[in-house]
């Protein structure tokens, strides 16, 4: 009885606490007001005005919309996007953007009907409407996505009726499904299965040429842009960095741990990207010279450090654990450096490495977003990236110059110098460009995997009414304006199209909803002529206002349709440097 009374009292206290907590939690605005005050800066005074305006263009009844940035100090590349005629959109940039077409061909810049975006409140997460060769029929969560061919497609439509997307996280499971014929194409073949597929006459082996790079990073100054920078590490000494650059047998790594088709990196950027391989090639493996350099630096017997990595499969690093151990072995054998292998959880790893807080070596890589050298070099060696320690002006000044030049050929010399500077300063050691592969049944005609973007499934012919594609995972949502994972982008791309697109076998840019996008002399104004007579899947007709509405929903943080799934619209923020009217 005594225990019961105490118990009742204890329960009463707990309930009271819960009620108090619930009551205090009721005020939703509590936490944010202080932050809002702190974040006010010059650029947000235009925040209250709705920057999407309507202007009547010449030629009569068409009222073209536009979205404009208040000024060019907000940090982003886009100054305005305007529907200058019923079938013409003009993009004005704040500074030269030579890679405009390559970026605009990316799936997140797909076009949906203005009315549909409004009807779904800016979040058509599971019901996108586009102009693509397939119409979304059903999304059976956890199981599959079913599409049917679009009979009114503006281009050459699919030769079959139904497209099905499925997924399996295990590479072995995907291959097994392919071998048993229950699916027609799979992605991401495990490197050990390359031979199996090549030897199987019922399957077709498809090498995937997506440019990527694995690099061994060395943090020279810890937390260089942080509140309390950690100062120099052992890697701040250029001799140490050079010793490591010469002391890794990269060919052995590629020969033993990478699938066929992979290459040792001669430069940071793969050579298939224009201007990627200008300048001198990387150092050869020279263990004796490496040891000499290390001794000169004051470490004749090596030193202790750590090598960090995350256990996540990527094209540039298909077997992270195994390769990390290989680096450990090589560092020990060639340079007598004792590197403890430390696996980190992915999110934490990215956070720490991107801020330059990892004290040691780490394995990371880069997969191309769009086919331009700026996508590789500018991200890693710009003056705002603390990943390798303090950025080197010898590199970033050249990159800033290069990114202003519209023509690839004209920029070649600058990029040669930049690559040479990278080679000289060794902020990291580029290791390999990893090949990956996918596979289809031999009965599939024109089975392919593009270097950029997901396969164009309306161009394959399975010889039957249904084509089944199996990828790594389920899409997160089908509104790719606000998604970043490859699985979502592949699924959206079948339904929603951007103005331009990537070719089936290279990074060349082709027309889609725009017949042509031309830039002015210094690449600050891009004008896109739109395709006429195209209808969306819901029957409405496509015009320039749909383009503006779709882009505005992503680029303009104050737009009422800027809702999406994450609400962050990452690719707009990242590829255009900043959102218009964002809080900075």
């Amino acid at each position, binding site marked *: 009885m005594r225990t*019961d009374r105490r*118990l009742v009292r*204890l*329960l009463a206290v*707990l309930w009271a606490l*819960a009620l108090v*907590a*619930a*009551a*205090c*939690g*009721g005020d*939703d605005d*509590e*936490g*944010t007001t202080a*932050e809002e005050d702190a974040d006010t800066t010059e650029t947000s005074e235009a925040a209250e005005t709705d920057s999407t305006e309507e202007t009547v263009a010449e030629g009569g009844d068409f009222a073209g919309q536009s979205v404009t940035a208040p000024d060019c100090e907000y940090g982003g590349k886009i100054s305005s996007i305007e529907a200058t005629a019923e079938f013409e959109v003009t993009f004005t940039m704040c500074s030269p953007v030579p890679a405009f077409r390559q970026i605009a061909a990316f799936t997140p810049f797909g076009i949906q009907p203005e009315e549909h975006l409004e009807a779904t409140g800016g979040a058509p*997460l599971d019901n996108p409407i586009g102009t693509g060769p397939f119409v979304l029929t059903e999304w059976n*969560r*956890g*199981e599959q996505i*079913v599409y049917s061919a679009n009979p009114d497609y503006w281009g050459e439509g699919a030769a079959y009726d139904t497209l*099905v997307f*499925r997924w*399996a*996280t*295990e590479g072995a*499971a995907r291959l*097994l*499904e392919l071998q*048993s014929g*229950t*699916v027609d194409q799979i992605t991401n073949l495990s490197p050990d299965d390359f031979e199996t597929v090549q030897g199987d006459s019922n399957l077709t082996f498809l090498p995937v040429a997506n440019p990527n790079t694995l690099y061994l990073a060395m943090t020279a100054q810890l937390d260089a842009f942080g509140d309390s920078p950690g100062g120099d590490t052992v890697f701040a000494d250029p001799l140490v960095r050079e010793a490591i650059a010469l002391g890794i047998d990269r060919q052995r790594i590629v020969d033993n741990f990478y699938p066929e088709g992979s290459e040792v990196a001669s430069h940071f950027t793969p050579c298939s990207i224009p201007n990627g391989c200008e300048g001198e090639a990387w150092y050869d493996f020279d263990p004796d010279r490496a040891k000499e350099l290390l001794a000169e630096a004051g470490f004749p017997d090596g030193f202790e450090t750590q090598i960090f990595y995350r256990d996540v499969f990527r094209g540039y690093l298909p077997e992270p654990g195994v390769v990390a151990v290989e680096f450990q072995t090589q560092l020990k054998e060639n340079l007598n450096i004792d590197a403890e292998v430390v696996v980190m*959880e*992915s*999110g*934490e790893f*990215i*956070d720490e490495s*991107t801020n330059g807080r990892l004290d040691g070596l780490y394995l990371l890589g880069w997969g191309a*977003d769009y086919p331009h050298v700026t996508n590789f070099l500018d*991200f890693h060696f710009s003056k705002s990236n603390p990943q390798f320690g303090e950025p080197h002006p010898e590199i970033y000044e050249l990159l800033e110059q290069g990114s202003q030049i519209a023509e690839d050929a004209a920029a070649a010399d600058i990029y040669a110098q930049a690559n040479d500077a990278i080679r000289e300063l060794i902020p990291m050691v580029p290791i390999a460009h990893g090949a990956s592969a996918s596979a289809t049944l031999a009965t599939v005609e024109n089975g392919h995997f593009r270097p950029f973007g997901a396969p164009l499934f309306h161009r394959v012919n399975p010889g039957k009414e*249904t084509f*089944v594609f*199996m990828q790594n995972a*389920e899409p*997160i949502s089908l509104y790719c304006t606000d998604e*970043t994972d490859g699985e979502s982008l592949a699924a959206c791309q079948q339904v929603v199209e951007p103005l331009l697109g990537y070719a089936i076998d290279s990074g060349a840019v082709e027309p889609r909803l725009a017949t042509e996008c031309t830039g002015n002399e210094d690449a600050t104004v891009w004008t896109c002529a739109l395709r006429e007579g195209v209808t969306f899947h819901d029957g409405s007709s496509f015009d320039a206002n749909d383009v503006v509405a779709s882009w505005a929903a992503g680029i303009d*943080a104050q737009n009422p349709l800027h809702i999406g*799934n*994450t*609400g*962050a*619209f*990452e690719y707009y*923020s*990242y590829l255009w440097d900043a959102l218009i009217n*964002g*809080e*900075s």
Partner: protein
Amino acid sequence: MLSFIIRRLLLAVPVVIGILIVTFFLARLIPGDPCRSIIGEKATAEACEAFERNKGLDRPLPVQLGIYMRDIVQGDFGDSIRFSRPVSQIMAERLPMTIELATTALLIAIVVGVGLGVASAMRHNSAVDIGSMTLANIGVSMPVFWLGLMLIWLFAATLGWLPPSGRLTAGVSSTPFYVAWGWDPGEEGTFRFLTFEFLSNHVIGNSIVVGEWEVLWDAIKHLILPAVALSTIPMAIIARITRSSLLDVLGREYVRTARAKGAANRRVVVRHGLRNALLPVVTIIGLQMGALLSGAVLTETIFGLAGVGTMLFEAITARDFPVIQGFVVIIALSYVVLNLIVDISYAYLDPRIRLQ
């Protein structure tokens, strides 16, 4: 008895609250933030600020906890950070798969386990007895994921008899019963809709009810290997308990008396032995249900089944706090209920325990 039940129910409430609070903080203790985990490694600082603002993650922790508790009390489990969909909706889609898997595994475990146990007890110390107990011992010692992989290798890759993964073959789906019968499931997001969705996602049950026999066969074919893998440990445990319990009962005096009176052996076993012997077995079965939910995580991963286990694991990787919290609470609630039922039935059987 009633006061015992009420006391236990009241005690269960702070336990669930405790679980909720522990989950809340434990999930946030995992290093790395949801933004980088969900948006990816190239997330810009601007994107992460917007993301955290939209999802309410920039508020102080006690405020977040308070809002969550207030919502849970009203039955609102919040929206998934990753999908922007209600957690209850995701639960309604995922739970049926796990329930089907666990129930099928349990059925296999009971049928085979009790059968083996009875056979062993009746032929005590014979080859059957030793053989099945050895198998049972080995069964209990196997890692579920290893067994799963070996089964896939044998039946799917080498023999090709069964599919290696997935719930249904591509393109095959079961028409929800409410569509087939013309019932209106109601608006998306309502409780009625959730219930209909939850029920129709039990593909095996749904296809029986609708009469789609092809779909049923396809679903069963896909479920055999995972269910067998998952059932192995409970099957072994049930076999052992059945055997020892039945042996115990068979040795008792009243059974010997019945035999001495000349009743046929089999009748003796069935009437007197089995009924009494099954009591502890029933209790163990109840407990195994809980263990099955736990083992389902690994099985679902290997066989690529879209159930609660895989979703929870993905949510942990992606730091999708509402999903982690919601799923854990629901699982914990079912554990509490199961434990409660077991303890109540034990108290019912053994008066000594009730008085504690």
